[in-house]
């Protein structure tokens, strides 16, 4: 699988999130993000390619609780 047109893919969103959330200049103690009203489940690419099956298991467990 080769992503040529990166901007038009869902992976571009994941890559963008990976960059803006995990990298960049940090002023100590001044990065404050809210997850209270989060409307996006962020799965980094690393997680996505390795743990789709794990995610399914977690979801199934939650549904059975």
């Amino acid at each position, binding site marked *: *699988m*080769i*992503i040529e047109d*990166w901007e038009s893919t869902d*992976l*571009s*969103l994941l*890559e*963008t*999130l990976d*960059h*803006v*959330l*995990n*990298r*960049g*200049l*940090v*002023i*100590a103690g*001044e*990065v*404050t*993000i*809210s*997850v*209270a*009203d*989060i*409307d*996006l489940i*962020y799965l980094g*690419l*690393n*997680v996505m*390619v*390795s*743990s789709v099956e794990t995610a399914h298991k977690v979801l199934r467990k939650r549904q059975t609780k």
Partner: protein
Amino acid sequence: MKLYLYCLLEGIAQLDQLPQGISNAPVRLLPIDDLAVLVSDVDKDAVAVTRETALAHAAVVRSVLDRTTPLPFRFGTLVSEEQLRSYLSTRKPALENNLRLVRGCVEMGVKIIWSISNNDPHEQQLSDEKQGAGARFLEEKRREILGDERRSAQATEISGWLHESIGELIRDEHVAVRPSEKLVLTAAHLVERNKIRQYREKIAEARASRPDLHFLMSGPWPPYTFANIELEFKTRFGVS
């Protein structure tokens, strides 16, 4: 009122037609000494992580990439103007070093994923032999350990091969070998703008020579990965 920070710039005194920032807030250029910071004035204590806010942050940083190479701030950086001035004042030498490192460059990303099974058929054959439950368990564990070691060695070899393929075209790199089970590596390369075409060609050649691997390429990006390496270390470990 606080400042939401997008990126740090050098050599820019004025910018026109900036995109809207997070939550549609106007974006302005705040000059501080010989540097400048793209900021929005916000009346919040935290920024919600949503698709819109994250993409807005990325869009503002990216908007200046045609004119200069910024040092992006991480999403969610909210400070007072006094805190920002203090940060720039105390970190100025390191920030200038980082600006010098990324000047004229963009970040390109490569992820390599295993695409074929690395299971050894001889190993598999062993498990098919009749064994007791305990022996099968131990055999399974042995195979896991051997397989893991083999994959780590292969990943290290692939990382070296990739570096040899594009090393002369990059100014710097940040590589994580086997960051997860199915990833061979993730790499961020700092590439001079006039070498992007050559870089892509080299990556394409490398990709063609290894059909056993999947390549995911991205970029050009503002140099998020290279903005903070030294500074983050100092911040985290209290080294000044």
